[in-house]
């Protein structure tokens, strides 16, 4: 029975990932200009692109982890009012379509953006002082902006179950706060840190919209290059080769990661969050936390708030306009319908991704038998592949291989799940691995059959991590990442689809409506996240 369950995620991947991927690769290399592939290896340009891709991804990841780590700590250890809301807000960037974010960044940081204008006014300057559009800087900023929440939730979630007594013990033994953190907490956090870092890296590595729009035409990652080779050049062999390179890099990186994880995962004294969290006590604590949170909110919220504010520029007229099909267009999307469709797909994705992710995480849990470790590590890396695969390539693969299925709603949900379920796996795995086997044995000795052991011991402990994964699944689906846009059902338009439709034409009314829809997207997503977080599966909240 167990092996049947474990096989499900694999079957899922084979059908909806390997098969389409194989189809598009095969087609690409069978084209008559297949010899063009050679240029990928001879033209130094591609090497530069690869180096840039890896470089910006590494830098982005490091910065994101460093900047978000204090947030993870604050949310893990402290109890304060509005914590859930704040945390939900940090996840909003994740769901926003890149064109909207890019415009918001432009509006803030562009040569005639608010910040530059303000500075020019303040310091009586001729030229805008901040020239970061189309540079590495803005790419890094945007990446941190998007991925902050990944680190916050995964590391924070794990941290909130760690026994604070371990740090206290270190302090009593004479370690300063910093040393206690460095020597005790950090190694214990390592599994979650690595998981978050891996996810963020893969995201940055395959970053597309941000590089495309904010990076300008001169900066290119592999993904952007794949897109450029495909769309108007239709140079499939080169695109496929670049996809393969991208895939191999992701795979190799994940293998390294699994090797590290195997060594770092250890059974922990897990404590329920209610005991770990405490209210802010001393004034100094309060001030520092408040300052950091203020900075965080400022950074993450300003672009989003500017979108919301701009959407109300004309009173509520843009919102009103959303409900009017002024030109009697057949392509008109009633906003309620878009919201409903988005929520429907997102709910279905959450359920499917959570189930598959849970099963996959358990199939990866290392038992004592180290004979299993190599296949397990390979499987772990395989589960991450959908995230590290070129969306353009995969999207075409869907068309090619699953074209007949295009009509089915199921394909949309499955495509969303493909991208969402690695998040669930990464969120759950560190917790699952840290459940002391002794707890399960104790339950067994008290008469619990294997299924009941799972239900009574694992499930409550894993639930919180499962919810972290579920939140990601929800936002991935709402934001329609990666290849998912390519399998969208036109008669079931979602909010991102509606935004893109409205931006296809010039005019203030159109742009205003895009802003209004983005605001609605943010609102719906925030509510959805809060709802998911409130779910309780099993008896106790752990």
């Amino acid at each position, binding site marked *: 029975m167990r092996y049947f369950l474990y096989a499900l995620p694999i079957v899922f991947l084979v059908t909806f990932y390997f098969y389409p991927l194989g189809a598009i690769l095969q*087609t690409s290399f069978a084209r008559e200009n297949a010899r063009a592939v050679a240029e990928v290896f001879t033209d130094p340009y591609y090497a530069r692109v690869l180096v840039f891709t890896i470089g910006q991804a590494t830098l982005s990841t490091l910065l994101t982890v460093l900047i978000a780590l204090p947030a993870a700590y604050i949310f893990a250890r402290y109890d304060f009012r509005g914590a859930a809301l704040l945390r939900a807000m940090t996840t909003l960037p994740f769901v926003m379509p890149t*064109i909207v974010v*890019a*415009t918001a960044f*432009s*509006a*803030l*940081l*562009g*040569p*005639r*953006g608010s910040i*530059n204008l303000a500075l020019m006014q303040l310091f009586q300057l001729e030229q805008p002082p901040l020239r970061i559009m*189309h540079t590495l800087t803005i790419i890094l900023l945007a990446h941190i902006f998007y991925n902050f929440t990944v680190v916050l939730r995964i590391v924070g979630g794990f941290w909130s179950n760690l026994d604070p007594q371990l740090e206290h013990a270190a302090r009593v033994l004479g370690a300063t706060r910093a040393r206690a953190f460095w020597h005790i907490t950090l190694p214990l956090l390592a599994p979650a840190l690595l998981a978050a870092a891996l996810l963020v890296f893969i995201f940055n590595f395959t970053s597309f919209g941000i590089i*495309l*729009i904010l990076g*300008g*035409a*001169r900066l290119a990652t592999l993904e952007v290059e794949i*897109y*450029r*080779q*495909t*769309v*108007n*050049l*239709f140079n499939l062999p080169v695109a496929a080769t670049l996809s393969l390179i991208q895939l191999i890099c992701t795979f190799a990186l994940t293998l390294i990661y699994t090797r590290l994880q195997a060594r770092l995962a250890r059974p922990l004294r897990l404590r329920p969050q209610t005991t770990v969290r405490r209210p802010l006590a001393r004034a100094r604590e309060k001030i520092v936390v408040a300052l950091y949170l203020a900075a965080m909110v400022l950074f993450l919220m300003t672009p989003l708030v500017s979108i919301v504010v701009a959407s109300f520029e004309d009173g509520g007229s843009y919102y009103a306009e959303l409900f009017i*099909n002024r*030109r*009697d*267009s*057949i*392509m*008109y999307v009633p906003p309620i319908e878009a919201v*409903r*469709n988005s*929520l*429907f797909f997102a*709910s279905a994705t959450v359920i499917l991704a959570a189930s598959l992710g849970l099963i996959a995480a358990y199939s990866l849990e290392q038992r004592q038998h180290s004979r299993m470790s190599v296949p397990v590590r390979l499987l772990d890396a395989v589960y991450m592949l959908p995230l590290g695969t070129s969306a353009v390539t995969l999207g*075409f693969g869907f*068309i*090619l291989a699953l*074209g007949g299925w*295009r*009509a089915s*709603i199921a394909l949309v949900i499955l495509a969303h799940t493909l991208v969402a379920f690695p998040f669930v796996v990464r969120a759950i795995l560190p917790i699952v691995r840290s459940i002391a086997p002794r707890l399960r044995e104790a339950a067994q000795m008290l008469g619990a059959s294997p299924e009941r052991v799972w239900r009574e011991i694992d499930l409550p402990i894993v639930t919180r991590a499962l919810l972290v994964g579920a939140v990601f699944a929800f936002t991935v689906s709402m934001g329609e990442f990666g290849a998912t846009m390519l399998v969208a059902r*036109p008669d*079931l338009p979602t909010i991102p689809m509606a935004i893109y439709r409205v*931006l*296809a*034409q*010039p*005019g*203030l*009314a*159109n*742009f205003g409506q895009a802003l209004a829809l983005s605001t609605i997207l943010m609102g719906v997503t925030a509510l959805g996240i809060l709802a998911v977080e409130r*779910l*309780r*599966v099993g008896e106790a909240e752990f």
Partner: protein
Amino acid sequence: MFKTIVFVLLLVGWLSACAPAPTATPAPTATPSGPREVVIMTHDSFAASESVIKEFESANNARVKILKSGDTGSALNKAILAKASPLADAFYGVDNTFLSRALKEGIFEAYKPAGAAQIPAEFVLDAEFRATPIDYGDVCLNYDRAYFAKKNLAPPQTLDDLIKPAYKGLTVVQNPATSSPGLAFLLATIGYFGKDKYLDFWKAMRANDVLVTDGWSDAYYAKSTWGGKGGDRPIVVSYATSPAAEVYFSKGKLTEPPTGNVLGDGACFRQIEFIGVLKGAKNPDLARKFVDFMLSTKFQEDIPLQMFVFPVMADAKLPDFYKFAQTAKKPAVVSAADIDANREAWIKAWTEVVLR
């Protein structure tokens, strides 16, 4: 336990409330009495009035399903990739810059539509009518009137003006590798300067600080001075109808277009859009009827307001605000054969000169 049950019930309730109202997914060849479905694959900019489409549907006992598939290039690529088992009955949106690719890949079936004789000859690029022209529009540079007025600078009149020092750092174009108007503008420069000299122009553009984006939305909304979102470029590659669209979509605030077009000889490129019946379509007869329908007056007159391009049929009446819509008197000309032979090479050369 109890909580789990409640939760599951709520979830089931939510899902069924959320489940999209069954837009009846009919089988392609349904019962004789029920309507048949015809699927039209298009690029993302397709639009038509509901009433117009409904007319077609009732006249032919059909249901029209529009399958939007990305920008022009992406949509065509998908149609090509799926040609063994087509995703639709007809494909609309291939333009003259890509027609050769579509014809070479053989995705279309020849069909001479009912109104073929009335189509002006300049638009009929395929004598076999594997693809039928439906509309055209000019890709031109738009410029910000207010900006040039304030700076007391004459707006550019021809492409040559763009490389003058006075216009340094004022232009944004799109990458021809990723953007349809971007490619069109590149072809304009090739048509105007010639195959030998166009790269010199682009070298000069690079020296004159031209900004390149990958897509039209980014250039138009985020980089232009009139998009209002922090951009600082007053000259943007867009469509000749964009100034008119600005008026239309200004919610009554504008009575005059805020932007103008650079309409000098050879400064614009005429894009003609085609529709073709896909080989292997499930309902080819309905597809053909739809092609006929797109050439009918009803549809042709619907085009301006929906897609902001011009109908090919001369007798189609244009809406009022099209008084602001302009076309180039002498758009740049590049032969279809040339485009077919050199498209990729030109894009690569341009990339080398401008980006790398």
